């Protein structure tokens, strides 16, 4: 197996292509590098999983979830919108090639191939969306729980300090 051809080159091309997309969306340099690293994350995980004989749908789901997690972490670190990293990071997973070949089969009248490829393309697009959905809603839930806990602690602190003057701000 040729590691350069199978792993390094696709990662490199997705990095360059996604950085170019980031420029089109007007992302500044510091965020641009981080966002493009997200595309490497998705491409690398996708390649490694598909080598280990995971199905196409599973690969896309897991790598989309990984990119979503990466974007949430980068957004937290850089205090920037999650979208900035997420939009660029999932670009390598977009089933552009499959959709094109499905369309080609349709216009040449090969309906069986068209159906097969269209179902594949829709499945991949859906699994990417579901990967983002899973991670983002988990993060949202975590944030909501933390906010609730903070409000509760705040209330407890206030009632405590009202009754007991010796309690200092901690």
């Amino acid at each position, binding site marked *: 197996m040729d590691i350069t051809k199978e792993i390094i080159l*696709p990662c490199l091309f997705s990095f360059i*292509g996604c950085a*170019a997309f980031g420029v*089109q969306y007007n992302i*500044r340099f510091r965020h641009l590098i981080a966002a493009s690293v997200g595309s490497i994350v998705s491409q690398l995980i996708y390649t490694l999983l598909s080598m280990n004989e995971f199905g196409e749908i599973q690969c896309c789901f897991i790598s989309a979830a990984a990119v979503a997690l990466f974007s949430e972490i980068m957004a937290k670190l850089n*205090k*920037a919108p999650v*979208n900035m990293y997420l939009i660029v990071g999932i670009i390598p997973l*977009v089933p552009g090639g499959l959709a094109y070949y499905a369309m080609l089969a349709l216009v040449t009248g090969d309906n069986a191939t068209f159906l097969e490829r269209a179902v594949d393309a829709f499945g991949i697009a859906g699994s990417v969306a579901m990967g983002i959905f899973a991670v983002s809603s988990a993060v949202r839930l975590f944030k909501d729980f933390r906010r609730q806990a903070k409000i509760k602690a705040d209330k407890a602190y206030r009632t405590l300090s009202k009754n007991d003057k010796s309690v200092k701000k901690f």
Partner: protein
Amino acid sequence: MNEIQLTGICAEIARLLIKYGAEIYRVEDTISRICRAYDHSEAEIYATPANFIITVKDKNNVPCTDSKSISGRDTNLDRVGKINELSRFICSEKPEAEIILKKLELIKNRKTYSPAVIYTSYFVAGGAFTMFFGGTPLEALFGGILGLVIHFLSIKLKKVGASAFLNAVVCSMAVSFLAVAISYIGFVPRFDKMIIGATMALAPGVALTNCMRDFISGDFISGIYTLTEALLIAVGLAVGAGSAVAAVIRF
């Protein structure tokens, strides 16, 4: 700051956020935080990708409302980030209206990348994705040139006010014709990789991501709106490329 100024500023911030490609959850969250900072936690906010309405009540319980209708996207995630910073600043400092308006003006006039850089990025993206989908370096060169064609056409179409669907159809049709012509003349043996690589620039990535994030936060109207947009653009790409290839494939 009085209620009229508050609603005016909130409506302007929301309009900019939606125009620059933020998801609706972010818009509603930002505006409700700003309203809470100025002691208007009762504010009613209604936002979709096409319009925005805010109503707050003054101390005599008289409602004060402002609305915006938004048309035309101009994705600029850098400015979304800056408006995010501005809203953090508003919530912590509670500044006067003039200061906020001045800062908004600064954000609106923030430098974007120059046209030369944008054209280069379309060239690089077209080339890199042609290689990514398995093309040769020569095909990548032509894929990059087709990327330039896409950017040129979409600027022209935006000037006459074409919709995103029409933009996708026209651009992908032109690119497919050119790619088939290039391979027909004999520069490269096949045209499919060039078409795929160049049309990746039109793939509805922003719409798809925003629609998922809208669905998560429970904004189903906005989610369906953006999902329809994403599907229509994808169908438009297929229609454009398909009709061009089908017209030529007979010969």
